[in-house]
């Protein structure tokens, strides 16, 4: 039988430090008017059941470990969707003192879905795109490969590390913006470094 993860992707949602606008739109995309459930998308509260991680809002020192913990509890193959501009880059709050940046400062992001607030259509679009990456990851895993060589994890720069007192480690605080280091794209060394960082 032809197995495909994308036939019924289960999603888990976590609100980083968003203003709620994106959260309610993520939920709205699952309710009858937009009805993502017709594609088999089911909202779950358990990271171990989930295939796609929808994160809204930016990360700060308080919620960064939570985002990482949820991500680490999810089983491969898994995808991360950054929902809304705050999750992509920090949005209007990027200059606020307590905002570290987009979700890619904490975990590798596969799909960036912009918008303030994100529209339900964009959420569904992003989930469909994430489904494609899920299928790719699954194919790689079935062939005995490493799922971290597919999607956002392949080019991820490792994000930020928190030191013991909860602040961002100095060396990476002002680091390069997400997606900028084109040099690491497709290099197998990058995911290995990301693994070590975790």
């Amino acid at each position, binding site marked *: 039988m032809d197995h495909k993860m994308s036939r019924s992707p289960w999603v*888990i*949602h*976590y*609100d*980083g*430090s*968003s*203003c*709620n*606008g*994106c*959260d*309610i*739109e993520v*939920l*709205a995309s699952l*309710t*009858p*008017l937009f009805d993502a459930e017709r594609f088999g998308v089911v909202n*779950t*509260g358990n*990271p171990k059941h989930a295939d796609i991680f929808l994160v809204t*809002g*930016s990360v*700060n020192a*308080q*919620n960064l470990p*939570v985002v990482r913990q*949820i991500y680490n509890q999810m089983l491969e193959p898994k995808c991360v969707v950054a929902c809304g501009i705050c999750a992509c880059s920090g949005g*209007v*709050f990027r*200059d*606020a*003192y*307590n*905002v570290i940046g987009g979700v890619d400062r904490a975990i590798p992001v596969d799909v960036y879905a912009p918008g*303030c*607030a994100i*529209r339900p259509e964009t959420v569904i679009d992003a989930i469909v795109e994430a489904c494609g990456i899920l299928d790719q990851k699954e194919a790689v895993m079935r062939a005995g490969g490493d799922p971290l060589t597919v999607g956002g994890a392949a080019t991820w720069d490792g994000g930020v590390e928190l030191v013991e007192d909860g602040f961002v480690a100095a060396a990476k605080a002002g680091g390069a913006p997400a997606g900028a280091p084109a040099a690491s794209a497709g290099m197998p060394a990058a995911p290995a470094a990301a693994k070590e960082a975790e």
Partner: protein
Amino acid sequence: MAHRSVIPFGPQHPVLPEPLHLDLVIEDDRVIEAIPQIGFVHRGLEKLTEKRDMHQFGYIAERICGICAVGHSCGYASACERMLGIEVPGRVQYIRTILHELSRIHSHLLWLGLLADAFGFEALFYRSWTLREQILKIFESTCGGRVILSINEIGGLKHDIEDSELAGIVQALDAMRPDYEALVHTFLDDNSCGERLHGVGVISKKDALELSMVGPFGRASGVDYDVRMFGDGAYADLAAFEPIVATDGDCYARCQVRCAEVTQAMDIIKELVGKIPHDGIGGRTKLTPADGARGEVVIEQPRGEAYYYVRGNGTKNLDRFRVRTPTSQNLAGLTHALQGVLIANVPMIILTIDPCISCTER
């Protein structure tokens, strides 16, 4: 004595759309104490006044919270207008109030849906959110956005909402009523809902006053307080306004109050659309606040009283912006309501205060 243990609740929990962490100290399956921990959504946006000028900050203020967005932008704009001594045209006040009341309807419908979801009535959750989409459709057709409307400017509105569009709003609300009444009937009269709501998380009027609870949470305990009754702005022209109060103080009463407030908001919109003046929509002011000029405004958000304070320092940037939101008032009531309840009722009680964490932490 029974064995005590601590159960962590949140920040990631199916019942919570927003991150809030509670340490529940339990004895058997009774909660002895609930210790809230916040800070997951803190962005520090009040300090952004130093980097964004007065007008740019309107967009930040609107994004304090996506559910109460309209209220926050109205509150910020009117606080700035008071600071600058601007009198905005009546039409501006009317349109702001109409949009604010619409957002109250959408917020309460959203809450009703989440409540249904919390007690496991999935179909009712979907019904509520389907109705809510009609309000969002009104927002989208009049302002262009579903959540963030960005219609307010300091000194007026960015664009007018035509009389024909306003009539369309009233028509859409009238068309919603039968569906809404059927929904309320299920919430308030259905046995399976009542079983989960009656007598859960009771707060007496005395406690509610002592804990300074505001909004529907306080009104459900008999606190007769609603900022709208002071008749500020367009509310002054209403023929009558009575806060909706219930006396039981349990989850059912909170549901009752919010259900009635939706109908009340529909009536307010209908009355205001009938009386709306035609005196222009103002526009972005060119004034700069004097050093030390201050403005304060109190408005009734869907979740309760919200207070806005702005202070100028003679430049285009504000010296200070401060907002006190309803949920920060109500968190004390939440921990009080959680004492002694069954652990199965915890999600219910957390939801009935309608916590808005992103407002609280900003």
